[in-house]
């Protein structure tokens, strides 16, 4: 029997914050619409969201590590320097596991997924995007921020949640949407141009994909159809002759490079076993991929579904959202901006900084955060075991709200956290309402961008109210 390839695990990250589109028109007098868009918090970027999605995907597995990590985004935190290496460090992957960026275009993300599904080994394919539009423009309200991670592999690697059945691809060159390096937002040609350019490419890819997999449209239980050209995507969806999944426009917005795998994750969250799921992506051509879910899906889903994350949210004011994205400059506290972190020190302490690994004293059992060569009791020197704490949960022992300290989004909520099973850390809280925090609250850890200084993003961990 030939080896089957497919999806071993998947996970999505939808940020906690939402923008109510009605607020756009009430502030600006134009734009907006109905529903909400997902908004990356001020301390999230495409890399940190990728970490969140990857942790969720790998969290559903027991000790299965990827052979490669591929990260795709059109809003990279760095150029020249690889962003996937930050995710690699946060996941504490071995240095022999390659981490690569697939950057530049929307198409890279779904292209990376296709490549991983046909390549040997286990590949963690992470896609992440933050969609910025000019205020009142279509992507201002219609865009969304999210990340996904899909672990591809073969049935030899573990139970596949969905088998990859094959697909087809078409490519076309037309300047319907474009953005030059350095610009935060895209521009587009008139709507009807893209629609007529895309439709032949969609029809051909769909027909080729059905032929390649010996499927008919009747075999397809649900299709996920997406692309940044909304009109063409709708037209494509209606022409397939199959049931089409909710595109999450009303609750998340179009999350660009992350959206195809986000909708695929959403479909897998709800699919029965043995269902055929089509992924149709309009991006400078058309990608069609077919999957068949397995009996393993029910037990292999991530702990938090896309739908659960859609429901767990808090609104952010439009003006604050604009400030987070750098579209509105607001007065910071009159304190010095932080210094750039030392790259030399950060490398020495990468297990701590990126992996949140403390140290547990072998004699006393006391966990030290940050790691320490000499313990607070017992007197032993260099007698500690690594204590990975990224997945630990804890309880707030005491807390405060700091309106004076420098922050991109004051005030700073700060808590002393006592971790279950040992370890204490005074640490910043994020995605928390200052008025709701209380002693005894439960928290979990999340990888965030603390600040950026001298162009260096300072990544570290924060606590957030436990969401599971």
């Amino acid at each position: 029997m030939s080896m089957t390839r497919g999806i071993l695990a998947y996970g999505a990250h939808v940020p906690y914050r939402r923008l109510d589109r009605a607020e756009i028109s009430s502030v600006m007098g134009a734009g907006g619409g109905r529903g909400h868009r997902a908004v990356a918090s001020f301390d999230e970027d495409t890399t940190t969201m990728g970490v969140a999605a990857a942790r969720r995907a790998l969290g559903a597995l027991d000790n299965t590590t990827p052979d490669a990590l591929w990260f795709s985004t059109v809003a990279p935190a760095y150029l020249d320097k690889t962003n996937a290496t930050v995710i690699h460090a946060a996941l504490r992957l071995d240095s022999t596991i390659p981490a690569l960026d697939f950057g530049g275009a929307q198409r890279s993300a779904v292209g990376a997924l296709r490549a991983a599904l046909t390549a040997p080994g286990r590949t963690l394919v992470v896609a992440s995007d933050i969609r910025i539009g000019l205020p009142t423009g279509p992507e201002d309200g219609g865009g969304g921020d999210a990340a996904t991670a899909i672990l591809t592999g073969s049935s030899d690697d573990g139970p596949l949640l969905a088998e990859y059945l094959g697909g087809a691809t078409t490519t076309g060159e037309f300047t319907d949407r474009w953005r030059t390096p350095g610009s935060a937002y895209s521009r587009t040609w008139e709507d009807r141009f893209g629609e007529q350019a895309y439709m032949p490419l969609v029809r051909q890819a769909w027909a080729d994909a059905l032929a390649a997999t010996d499927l008919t449209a009747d075999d397809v239980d649900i299709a996920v159809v997406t692309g940044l050209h909304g009109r063409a995507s709708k037209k494509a969806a209606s022409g397939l002759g199959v049931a089409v999944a909710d595109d999450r426009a009303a609750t998340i917005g179009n999350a660009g490079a992350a959206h195809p795998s986000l909708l695929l994750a959403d479909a897998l969250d709800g699919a029965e076993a043995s269902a055929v799921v089509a992924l149709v992506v309009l991006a400078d051509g058309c990608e069609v991929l077919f999957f068949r879910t397995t009996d393993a899906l029910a037990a292999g889903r991530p702990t938090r579904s896309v739908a659960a994350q859609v429901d767990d949210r808090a609104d952010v004011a439009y003006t604050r959202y604009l400030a987070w994205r750098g579209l509105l400059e607001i007065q910071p506290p009159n304190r010095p901006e932080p210094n750039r972190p030392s790259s030399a020190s950060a490398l020495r302490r990468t297990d701590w900084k990126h992996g949140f690994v403390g140290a547990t004293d072998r004699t006393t059992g006391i966990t030290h955060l940050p790691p320490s060569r000499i313990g607070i009791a017992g007197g032993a020197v260099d007698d500690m075991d690594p204590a990975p704490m990224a997945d630990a949960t804890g309880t707030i022992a005491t807390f405060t709200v700091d309106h004076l300290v420098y922050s991109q989004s004051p005030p700073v909520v700060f808590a002393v956290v006592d971790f279950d099973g040992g370890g204490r850390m005074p640490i910043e809280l994020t995605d928390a309402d200052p008025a709701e925090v209380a002693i005894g609250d439960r928290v979990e850890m999340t990888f965030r961008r603390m600040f950026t200084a001298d162009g260096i993003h300072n990544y570290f961990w924060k606590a957030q109210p436990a969401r599971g």
Partner: protein
Amino acid sequence: MASHGILDRVAIVGMGCTPFREHWDRSLDDLLIDAHGLALNSAGMVKDDVDAYWYGTSQSSASGISLATPLRLDNRPVTRVENYCATGSEALRQACYAVASGAYDVAVAIGGEKVKDGGYQGLNAFPIPTDGTNRTLTAAAMFSLMLPAYAERYGVDEDKLRYVVAKIAEKNHFNGARNDLAQFRREMSAEAICEMAAVAGPLSVFDCAGVADGAAAAVVVPAGRATDYTDAPLYVKALSLVAGDGSGLVDPAFDFTTLPECVAAADDAYAQAGITDPRTDLAMAEVHDCFTPTELVLMEDLGFSERGEGWSDVLDGRFALDGDLPVNTDGGLKSFGHPVGASGLRMHYEAWLQLRGEAPADRGVTTLDTRSRALVHNLGGYPGEMVSFVGIWGTEKD
């Protein structure tokens, strides 16, 4: 561990303190020259009488040269001292040990800070390259962590506790209003402070030490020669310093209702001085009220209140000018202002005035009939990781 102390072996024979202000028209050098001159005048000395200097500044300048140059010292040893906000007391401690050792006959401890040239409100730490994982919280927020913890542990309503610490600010403003050298010389009611906007936890800016420029200095000589310079020297009874190991930020057993470094320093100092009941042995105390919750917790850590009763002792007025044990009679950091390197010496300056009966009549303590010793407590750092100094001084030799 041995801590023998140098009971009655050295004495302060002169002190000086500049006004603590936003000294837009005075440089650090100006302030140091003024404090130095005031201290030497007070001891009846001239510059050439001084053998050695310990110069405390947290971040306003570096090395002994930055004191030797403005004072134009003639080949004298000058040691620059830094120990966070306890820098001033640490300079004095080192000067005392140098004299006690016999190495020098006359030593000056001087501390100064120029905080208002930086362009930001509040104090800001000197940036040291790190891996970027260190806390960036303000000191106000770090100390505000103690309020909910204290309320939880002792079952005190949080709003009531907020009022209690505002009463501490009210007391210190009352005292500062009677002190010409203080930065803030206006009384403030606890009610008005409670109505102010919160900046760190429930704390308002009026729960925080004043940010001021200033300098202060002390002249130290062997006890046997003290009366050559003054009729009323202050003899050292105890000098203690503890640098915490930071365990409070690691150990879940630490509950943010106490400052263990301060307890340890106080225990050591009381042993050195032979003090068994600080509440009745001390005529007054200057303590490090960097933020109002700090003074509350210190009342318990220094043994002035029973555990969990500091808040009610505050409400009872036990630490007011006319209370059982007056605390921060000069207005404290709250009202006098906090030029970091100078503050520890400023606290000693108040003990110097009070024990010698030289404080103005409207803020003089009434405890001197039966008591002749004062305590100075000076800390640097944050709950869970701090240095703490406790010194005890007296007008009588034991």
